């Protein structure tokens, strides 16, 4: 079966709303539809906003998830706020005692406020779309709700969004200049270190070299989950590093059709897709519908997934720039075959560890904790090239395949994949440990 491509309602994210539709015209159903529509727009804006590389996307999805959770937690005594559990989140506004509120209206106001701000740099079409949804969803959320409740809920939602945004300003990732590429950067001239891999002027410096210094969400620091150093660099054909590179090279020469499909399926390129964190959010949304989880469980999942993946990128980037390892394309062209070209475009930053491996492992860890270790599913989330759907016996099966896709694609050595997964698993534990229920 061909993978469903570009469905108008955004496939997986619309599925969140689908859960609610099962509940007919309930207020929870309206709230879920509003949430799903904003997430759908956010993923499109990730695809279409110039600064939205995967680390940046993960950050935004984390704030959105936390905000959605807190929108519900502020009015549900069964839920335990993340205030005090996430780094730097010391307080959030409370709802006024005795005032009636509506969850759908609050959620809409929170998502509206966050998305307009976090995607304020999107292009004119994105601005047009945001304005359109602001008008449309405000009406949809408020339909049938008493005017005083609507007003109070909008006001509270806006206040909550402002507080979340205020918290976000100080994490180190709020300002992205020059599309994430530093204006000046000194390459390490020693052999084995990263060198530019493209002929695009902007990419002669690596992407977001300071991202690993950002404030994490749940893990204590960017280096809380260290990984062993990569293989010692050598150009000696008898060396372990040469062997690692030869594995990438020989694999690329004998890719099966299935391996090519895997590489394409998980390529999740910046500016051409929802990016890896967006892909996993889409998977989560699909599974949430398949399992029929309620709105409360959805926002819990969105928060944990967002936090885990954002921390995964921080930890991964910390290690990437600590080790500053050369990419396979640079080594293989220099040492093995100057005409070699990998199947995938090599991303413009150091090799070790693999970002997709780290964050996919983090995502799989969270999903396994939420939905079990043997949940089989067919990933229906959209891919830019319309690759066929792929089915998995578990979330870890998907994460393992996502990780290996980088070796098939010729952009990572095996060790970056293995140790990246270990790092992601470690980082996710902090998100899984968050207390969300009283």
């Amino acid at each position, binding site marked *: 079966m061909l993978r469903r*491509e*570009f469905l*108008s309602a*955004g496939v997986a994210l619309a599925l969140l709303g689908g859960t609610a539709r099962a509940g007919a015209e309930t207020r929870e159903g309206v709230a879920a539809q509003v949430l799903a529509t904003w997430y*759908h*727009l956010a993923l*499109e804006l990730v*695809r*279409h906003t*110039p*600064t939205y590389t995967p680390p940046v996307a993960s950050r935004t999805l984390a704030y959105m998830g936390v905000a959605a959770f807190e929108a519900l937690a502020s009015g549900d005594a069964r839920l335990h706020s993340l205030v005090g559990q996430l780094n730097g989140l010391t307080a959030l506004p409370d709802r006024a005692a005795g005032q009636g509120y509506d969850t759908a209206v609050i959620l809409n106001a929170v998502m509206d406020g966050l998305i307009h701000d976090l995607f*304020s*740099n999107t*292009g*004119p*079409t994105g601005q*047009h*779309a945001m304005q*359109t*949804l602001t008008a*449309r969803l405000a009406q949809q959320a408020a339909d049938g709700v008493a005017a005083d409740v609507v007003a109070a809920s909008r006001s509270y939602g806006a206040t909550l969004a402002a507080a979340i945004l205020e918290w976000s300003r100080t994490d180190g990732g709020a300002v*992205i*200049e*020059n*599309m994430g590429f530093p*204006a000046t950067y000194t390459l390490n001239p020693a052999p084995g270190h990263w060198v530019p891999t493209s*002929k*695009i*002027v*902007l990419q002669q410096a690596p992407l977001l070299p300071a991202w690993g210094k950002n404030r994490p969400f749940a893990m204590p620091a960017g280096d809380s989950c260290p990984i062993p150093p990569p293989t010692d660099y050598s150009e000696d054909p008898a060396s372990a590093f040469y062997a690692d590179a030869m594995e990438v090279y020989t694999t690329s020469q004998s890719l099966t059709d299935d391996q090519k499909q895997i590489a394409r399926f998980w390529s999740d390129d910046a*500016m*051409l897709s929802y990016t890896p964190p967006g892909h996993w959010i889409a998977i989560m949304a699909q599974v949430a519908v398949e399992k029929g989880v309620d709105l409360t469980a959805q926002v819990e999942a969105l928060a944990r997934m967002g936090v885990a993946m954002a921390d995964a990128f921080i930890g991964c980037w910390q290690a990437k720039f600590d080790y500053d390892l050369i990419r396979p394309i640079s080594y293989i062209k220099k040492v093995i075959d100057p005409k070699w070209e990998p199947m995938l475009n090599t991303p413009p930053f150091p090799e070790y560890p693999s970002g997709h491996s780290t964050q996919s492992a983090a995502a799989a860890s969270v999903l396994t904790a939420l939905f079990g270790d043997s949940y089989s599913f067919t990933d229906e989330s*959209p891919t*830019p*090239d*319309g690759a066929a759907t792929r089915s998995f016996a578990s979330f870890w099966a998907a994460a393992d395949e996502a990780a290996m896709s980088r070796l098939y694609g010729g952009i990572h050595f095996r060790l970056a994949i293995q140790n990246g997964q270990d790092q992601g698993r470690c980082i996710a534990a902090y998100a899984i440990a968050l207390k969300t229920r009283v």
Partner: protein
Amino acid sequence: MRLFALALLASPAMAQGVEIPHYIDETATAGISSTYAGEWEFMTGGGVAAFDCSGDGKPELLLAGGTQKATLYRNDSPTGGALKFSAIAAGVELDRVTGAYPLDIDSDGIMDLVLLRSGEDVVMRGAGQCQFTRANEAWGFDGRDLWSTAFAATWEKGQTWPTLAIGTYIDRTQDAFPWGSCTPNALYRPKGQGFAAPLDLKPSFCSLSMLFTDWNRSGTPSLRVSNDREYYKGGTEQMWHIAPDAPPALYTAAEGWKPLKIWGMGIASTDVNGDGFPDYFMTSMSDSKLQVLAAGPDKATFKDIAFATHAIAQRPYTGGDFRPSTGWHAEFQDVNNDGVQDLFVAKGNVSAMPDFAMKDPNNLLLGLPDGTFAEAGDKAGVASFAQARGASVVDLNGDGQMDIVVVNRNSGAEVWRNDGSSTGHWLQLALHQDGANRDGIGSWIEVRQGDRVQRREITSGGGHAGGQVGWWHFGLGATLAADVRVIWPDGSASDWAAVAGDGFYDLTKGQAPMAH
């Protein structure tokens, strides 16, 4: 000492050994006052067509106006003098025009027009003396109601009527989720003395420039399409086989075509590396591409040499704005008459995108003898910071020096006169043939000086939303003579003929060059 200083003042400025042309900003006095106006639906487009409809040999200008009416400006410039234009009522005063291309569609020797619009496209028949009338119905042209943004034309083998390609952009009705809603591009093939129903060129990926070009000199042009990756899903740059009497077919990986995903906005073409085949410069955001054939004419594989040759317009080079650039119209011309093609790139923010430069100067990349380029826009005087879109690099006052007109979004168009201080010689050549395709679209002009041959494919299309037909300009450098010949669209080649430099020549099929 005093004499030495005067000599320095009199000498042309130099950049890496080549002369920098000197441009005089005559925007305030030239009589051109058009603004390409409008919001979302007019963030792209803003083209200008350059062609002679008054019969004096100097090109008139038709500027798209967006929400304002398109305007035709009659060229009243004295030869070699200050630029002078007068807006005239020509029948082209439509609103929602995004682009304009001249083309003698009915081959009656009078230039016709294709007006691209956010709305119904319109073909206009030239009646002479710069008067035009709508011809959609007379020529069976279905203008559709889409957001049109690209154009190209060719005469397919055996046809007496042109084939048009029109590229479109976003579905304007998809206001909340417009991404992935690219509307179909269309191919209009001949049907008698008119057009058949448009044939969708699917898949379509929000094209902003198209060009019929004979990339491998096979004798049959293909259709290159540059697409805006901002709006497509699963898209890529495209090249179509447009074989006579056969459905269009995309070039495939098996033929060597490699996917390339850019914010494609404009195509310029010339033979940069002297291999006899056209090369392609594509504008984008924060990047640009210069593609040359990678493995000869049997394989549709191109390699990018923009970085290696400094043919890059990826960020402002002056003005202090560090952010990446947004490139639109691109055009190769020899602006300093040194015999090496130069490259002009019109630039400007899409709207107010904060990650891209707001002060984004147009580029004037001077071609150097070693095949690389050197930026000279600021030194030449054309580094405007307005939000440029379309442009034309064209000799407006008939002095053999290439002037520049730029259409800007939400501010007035600008025009610069090349003051002719460059010392190189030049040729201006116009093609004529009997029957169909009077202006020889699809021909190749070759200009030989010693062992060196400059080649130029005569095309209709490309750039960003505008193009020109008329005199084709060649710089000759220090030598005041050259041999010229034409390889006509039917493959026949004229004999080499010697011509003196600094002159205009009519090259009529079957005849010797005739001084104009």
